[in-house]
Each structure stands twice: as structure tokens, then as C-alpha cells.
């Protein structure tokens, strides 16, 4: 499957109609996953639908919706889809699907979409609200057996590539990923939204968004969920059972750097929604230009040059070097004397920063001078992270002692109990649907 760039619009409101998708393609988006189609009669949506978490004046830090799948008739969607695909043959155009968890339903819808010209289908096994209560979306995505079963049905009844979109509302993302692979999936998309209540309207005493004073749990996305998705992508990309499977990364991607991080962790492409809903389709110019300039600077000519390049450095905690050491260093020439490093360290970390009032100068104000007590510093990064002017760097220390992982550390209880405890709690490999033995 090809697209002019790795940026696709995720299956969501921005891809619900021809007019939206064509506006996106005109702006330069590489592909789109059409908003999820279901069986007729179409669902009915509520008013209102979206809620947002703001942070310190920043809008849509997190975003949440209680909207269902498309509420337009199937034939209308399919007719529009065909027209878009015909007009934009170079763009990747995927159909997202969600029907009840029975073979007949999937067989029937796949038949109806066979001649749309779609480049593939994406199974929406992740929507955590509304549809899951009807036994679809996350309700099936949370059960690896169902994931495998549905994937297999689809592979049986269509020649199109099958993406399985995973729900993050699960303890171990590797299990449904393995199940999808077993069912024959060609690729994985993740993550779908996270089950959430975005906020409470304290005047109405109702969850937001409210529908006549009542609210319900919805799907959480936006910049706040990126770290969760990055981890899940890396988990799957590192898992020996799913390693190498194409991944379409989704979750809070707002700029080229976010996208590059997903690609570095093994995604072959990314899908975006919230950033487009916040700023419009124009951001595609920023995404492609940013990624391209960064690649030029780094000497990467193709995405393959860096896709998955960070994966070898994602390791188990117990493989980290316990002898690695950094200490914080404050650049006094850049320091603005806000004291955030000091109070963070003193109140909540390791009491490794000293404070003294500067000698009385010409000014009435006596600023506080903050200095790192290097012998106390554990190199935790907190001071550098809270510093608003980034004048604190973490300087690597020459310890003169070599690599020492937990597995070889004298305090590891395995030496006490005569065995490696960490190895005993490894995940049991996924065995497949019980019905099929």
C-alpha cells in the first residue's frame, strides 16, 4: 500500500463525508480512514458530543467524544467513498468497519464494499463508548479470541488488506495484537481512544460533555494520550510474536516530531485526528515539511531509514545499566532564579540543591542562588524538567565501572532465593481461541 506521505487522517469526524476528505486531500494529506461504517439503519448521535481537557491555558490538551460511528446510511457513504477514491487515486483510502460480532454481519458488509476501490479495511475493534455497550468496538477488542475470529472472517471474505484497530482499554496490548496476527491481519492500527470521563461540570453536577444534564464515559485522545500509545506501539513492535507487523500509529500526534517518534518506535505510518479537529487540515503542510527537514538534517532519505530505529534501545528495566550516572548542572548565567528546581528537589526528591540569598547588590531584591550538591544528586532529571528556561543539563559522570544490570546486581533476590524471579513472571504466550482448541 502506498501513499504520498505517512500522514493519514484517522477514522473519526474529519473523515465522515466526501466534503471533509476531499478538503483534506486538497490540503495534502496522504490518506484517510473513512469514519466507521456499520449496518443499516444507521446509528443516531446525541447532542452534544465532545469534551476537552485544557491545561494552563492550552486548549484540547486532551479530547474526548461520545459520538458513535457514522450516522449516515451505508449507501450514501459508499457512493461518496467511491467518488473520492476515483478522484484521488494516489491517496490511501481505507474503510473502517464495525458490525455485530457474527460471521454473517461481517460477510454481508464486506460484500457491499468490495467494489468501492478501497485500499484496505480497518476493523474498528476499539471504540470504548456507546458501541461497546452494543457488543461491538472495545467489547470485542478486549477479548483476543474475538479479535482473532473477526479478523479471520474478514480475511476469508475480502481480498483487501485488513488493518485491525486495537483498543488500549486492556491490560496487555500484546494479546489482542497477537490474536490479530493469528487471525491473518495484514497490519495493526493503534491506539483507539481511552475510556474516560473528561470532566465534571460542577454547576450542573454532570459529566461533560453533557446531554441535557447527563453525561457518559467517552473516548479520550489528543496530546495527553501520546505516551500511552507510544508504549503500546513499542510493546507490539518488540514482541517476538508480532515483530515486523506493519503498524499504523495513532494517539495524540500533533506535529512532525510526534510522528517521528512513532516511526522511530516501529510505526510505518501515522493517523491523526485531534490536531486536525483543533487546527484544521492545513497542519499537514507543517507535518510533512517538518518531517522532511528533519530527515534531511539527519541524512535519512527514506522513512525506512529510521522506522524502528529506536526499538533496540527500548529494553526491559532490568537490562538498564545500574552504574550509569548523571548529575544536574545549573548554568548560572542562564538561571532566572525562579527556584522551581530547588523546591521540587527539596520537597519531593533528594534534597540535592542548595539555596542561598546572594550578597546584597545594588538592587533591593536579593535573589536566591541555587546550586547542585553533586554528591547528593541521583540524576533523576526532575530539576531539569521543571526548569522553565532549560538552564539545567544532566551531565554524564565517568564512574569507571562497567555495565551492571539488575540481573547481575548483588541485591537481586535471585541470589538469595536461587533463581531469577523476573523470568518466572513472564507472560504466558497467547494460545488462540478456546473454541478452536
Amino acid at each position, binding site marked *: 500500500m502506498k501513499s504520498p506521505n505517512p500522514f493519514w487522517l484517522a477514522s473519526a469526524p474529519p473523515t465522515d463525508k466526501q466534503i471533509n476528505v476531499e478538503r483534506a486531500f486538497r490540503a495534502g494529506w496522504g490518506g484517510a480512514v473513512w469514519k466507521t461504517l456499520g449496518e443499516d439503519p444507521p446509528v443516531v448521535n446525541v447532542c452534544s458530543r465532545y469534551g476537552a481537557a485544557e491545561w*494552563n*491555558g492550552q486548549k484540547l490538551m486532551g479530547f474526548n467524544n461520545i459520538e458513535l460511528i457514522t450516522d449516515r446510511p451505508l449507501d450514501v457513504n459508499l457512493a461518496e467513498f467511491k467518488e473520492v477514491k476515483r478522484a484521488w487515486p494516489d491517496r490511501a483510502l481505507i474503510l473502517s468497519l464495525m458490525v455485530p460480532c457474527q460471521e454473517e454481519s461481517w460477510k454481508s458488509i464486506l460484500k457491499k464494499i468490495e467494489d468501492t476501490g478501497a485500499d484496505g479495511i480497518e476493523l474498528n475493534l476499539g471504540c470504548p463508548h456507546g458501541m461497546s455497550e452494543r457488543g461491538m468496538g472495545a467489547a470485542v477488542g478486549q477479548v483476543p479470541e474475538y479479535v482473532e475470529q473477526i479478523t479471520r472472517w474478514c480475511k476469508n471474505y475480502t481480498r483487501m488488506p485488513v488493518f485491525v484497530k486495537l483498543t488500549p482499554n486492556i491490560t496487555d496490548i500484546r494479546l489482542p495484537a497477537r490474536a490479530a496476527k493469528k487471525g491473518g491481519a495484514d497490519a495493526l492500527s493503534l491506539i483507539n481512544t481511552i475510556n474516560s470521563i473528561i470532566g465534571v461540570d460542577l454547576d450542573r453536577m454532570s459529566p461533560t460533555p453533557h446531554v441535557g444534564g447527563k453525561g457518559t464515559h467517552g473516548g479520550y485522545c489528543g496530546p495527553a494520550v501520546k505516551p500511552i500509545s507510544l508504549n503500546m506501539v513499542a510493546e507490539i513492535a518488540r514482541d517476538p510474536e508480532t515483530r515486523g507487523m506493519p503498524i499504523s500509529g495513532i494517539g495524540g500526534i500533533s506535529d512532525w516530531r510526534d510522528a517521528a517518534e512513532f516511526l522511530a518506535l516501529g510505526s510505518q505510518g501515522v493517523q491523526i485526528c485531534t490536531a486536525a479537529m483543533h487546527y484544521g487540515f492545513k497542519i499537514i503542510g507543517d507535518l510533512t515539511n517538518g518531517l522532511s527537514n528533519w530527515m534531511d538534517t539527519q541524512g535519512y532519505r527514506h522513512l525506512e531509514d529510521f522506522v524502528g530505529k529506536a526499538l533496540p534501545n527500548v529494553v526491559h528495566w532490568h537490562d538498564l545499566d545500574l552504574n550509569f550516572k548523571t548529575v544536574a548542572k545549573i548554568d548560572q548565567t542562564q538561571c*532566572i*532564579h*525562579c*527556584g*522551581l528546581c530547588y*523546591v521540587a528537589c527539596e520537597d519531593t526528591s533528594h534534597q540535592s540543591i542548595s539555596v542561598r540569598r546572594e550578597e546584597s547588590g545594588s538592587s533591593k*531584591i536579593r*535573589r536566591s542562588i541555587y546550586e547542585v550538591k553533586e554528591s547528593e544528586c541521583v540524576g533523576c532529571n526532575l530539576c531539569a524538567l521543571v526548569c522553565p528556561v532549560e538552564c539545567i543539563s544532566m551531565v554524564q559522570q565517568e564512574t569507571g565501572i562497567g555495565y551492571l544490570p539488575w540481573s547481575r546486581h548483588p541485591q537481586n533476590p535471585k541470589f538469595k532465593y536461587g533463581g531469577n524471579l523476573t523470568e518466572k513472571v513472564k507472560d504466558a504466550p497467547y494460545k488462540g481461541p478456546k473454541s478452536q482448541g
Partner: protein
Amino acid sequence: MQDSIFCDFKPPLNSQTAKIEASRCHYCYDAPCIQACPTEIDIPSFIRKISNGNLRGAAQDILSANVMGGTCARVCPVEVLCHSACVREVGEGKSVEIGLLQRFATDQFFEGPPESTQNLFERAPLHGKKVAVVGGGPAGLSASHRLALLGYAVTLFEARSKVGGLNEYGLAPYKVTSEGVQQEIDWILGVGGIDLKLNCALGTDVSLDSLRTEFDAVFLALGLGGVKKLGIPGEDQPGVFEASRFIEKIRQTTRIADLPVGRSAVVIGGGSTAIDIAIELKCLGAESVTIVYRGSEEKMSATLHERELARTAGVVICTSGRPVRILGNASGVAAVEFERTDRNAGERFELVANQVFKAIGQTLAVDAEVLRSIGLKGGRISVGNPGEIKPFETAIPGIFAGGDCIGLGEDLTVTAVQHGKLVAYAIHQSLFKEKSGDINYGRSHLSNRRGEITQSFLAGFSTANG
């Protein structure tokens, strides 16, 4: 008051811009802005409360440290106080707009419903001690409020028909409108326990001796009601005005069109009053307004910001000119003759003027005879320094003084408010003979209804005595 002429020269923030500006505050530990504030408002805390929508809490932080936080937000020379200390000023040359945020928080608070504004602080039960406060300006009001909270029965004597002092009579309308001042004063007096005696002047209507016998303590917050004289020929002819009196007229008049405004005006002086009158004259339609200061521009007590404001308003600032005489003709003032004080010393020049405004400083307005017994120094009342054994106490035990009438402050509203606050604590300490460390202010009465102690109260005290 003609709002169109004297509208805000710096527009207020709205809830959106306030939020954005508040988000610029780093919430510093040991924040230098607090050190720079004469009343030690916990600035990062009130700004954070604006960020998270707790505007009443923001007002609590401000007003607990500075009961005139609304006025000070407008009239403080923030560019030499909190703004100059802001770490953003250090780091990027653009301070957080602390003054505007403080104004936003206090405006929102005062515009709230009475049930929200009137119970912000609660008074301690009366313990029977009485204090006389003489002078209803910022220092007197601040002390009265704090004393009332501490359980005192306060009697506030004011020589004029309205309290407020310079806030009411002396602040240029382009900085703060009369309505805002009145609202704040009403709120301060609304705390209760303050008996107001208007039109009651020290020396004529009430004597210091009688106050000393009737009350457990007396606080003289007399301000500087008099104006210094130039002492040059021609000073007493029509067309020569005292700048502070003229500002008072602008503030108090009901028909601003009746105020006499000449085509060309000369303002003599180099402080905030000179700037204020000059800007007001431009607002009122004077064609040319020239401020003449005897020293160099750097020596002017008006801040760079104030000088820029004046110049933007079209005022010319002329330095190194000492007035020699005021020339007149049949219709009044005609010109002012100056002598140069710089390297061309001795050289003289004349400036045409229909009006001359004197803004060379103020003096105690109360008859020196009345105050002789308590000791004057440099024309002001001498008191014990803050931080010493008897802060703000005069030579006569039990008589305290603060605000502009003593020589300790910078003659700013904000320092007067701080003096009033510290005097209240000093009186409390002297009457209850408690050590500063273990004064029990009664948490309940220094707290809001939920019983949270406001740290700023104690912070103010420890500075004075610590």
C-alpha cells in the same frame, strides 16, 4: 467625571487574556516579586488562583496583604517594584503583567455579589481595647481595617468630608476613577468595628491629649496635605496653582468644563504629581505643557515609565531649570523665568505660560504646634524604625505614626498601606505585650469563613519585628 477623557490608559484584562497572562507566571519558589512588593503580597499564589478560576481566593491573597490591592494595582509604579523583580523580566525582558492581573482579580471580586465580598474576612470578637486613627487615607484605612480584624474598637478621624485621602483627592483620574476608590473604601469600612468621624480635624476639632486619654493607642496617619512653596517672586498671583489641589479639583468637580485650562502650562517639579498634572492638563486640552525640573532627568523621582507616559501624551520635559520668578501681566501669569543648573549655570531662559503648577513636594498640613510634643524631623514625624524595638511609635508612648507623614517610606500608596498594617500589629504587640513570635492573632478572625489562616498576615508582622 468625563470617562472619555479620563478613561483607563491601560485597558484591563478580560477573563481570557487574564488566563493567558496568568499562565506566564512560573510560580517561583522564594519569588522575588514578593520581596519587591512593599506589602508582600503572595503574588505567585494569587496568579495561580486566577489560572485555576479561584478568583475569590486570588482576592483573598491580595487583600489580606494589601487592603487597597485594587487601587495599588492601578497606581503602583510596578515597573520599579514587582515587575522589575519578575524572573521573566530577568529572563526575557517582559515581566508577567502582575499589576493588570491584580487589578483583574480585585475588580472581579468587587464586582461580585455582596454576600461574596462582605465576608471575605471576619473580625475577632471585641476585647475592649480602643484605638484612635487620625487620617482616613491609605495608611489610616489600612490600620483601621487590620485593627478591626484584631478585635479593636476603632475610631477613625478624618478632617475632610470623605475618607480616602490621596486615593480620593490626589490620584490622577487617568490612573483610577472615583467610583473604584469609593467601592474599595466602602468595602474596607464594611468590615465593621470602625466608627467614622468626618470633618473632624486634629488640633481644631479634637486634641491629641484627649485622644491619648480616651484611647488605648493613637495612630497618626496625617499624610502630607500641605504643598511646598517655591519662594520666588510672582508666586502668589492668579494662574499659579498647587498641582495636588488642582488634581483634587479635577477629581471632585461635577462640571469638568468649568475648570480653567490655559493654552500653555508650565509644571514645576519632577515627581509623580508633576507627571500626573501634566498628563491631566493635556487631557483637558492644554496646547503645550512643559514640565521643568531643576536637576537632570535621572534625578527625577518620576519613573521612566511615567516619563514615557507623559511624553506620549505630548508633554515636554525640560531638565536643569530652576525657577527664578513668575512674570505676570494684567490678565495673570505670562511666563516663568528659569536659571540653568547644568554646565551652563547662570544662563536664564523664559517659558511662556498662562498657568503654572507647583509640584515640588508636600508638607505636613497639621499645625506644627500640635505635633511639637511628639517630635518632628525634617518636617515629618519621627518614629521608631520597623524592625526595631518600638516600630512606628513616636516619642510619646502609645502614639504611633505612619504613611507619608513619617519619613520612612517612598510616599507611595502601597507603602502607606503597609505602614498601616504594620502599625496595627505594633499596637497590638504593645498593648498585649506579646513577643512577636507567639502573638496569637486568633486564627479564626484572621481567616476566611473556612478557617484557613492567611499566611500574609503573619508574614507582614514578622518582617516588622523579625
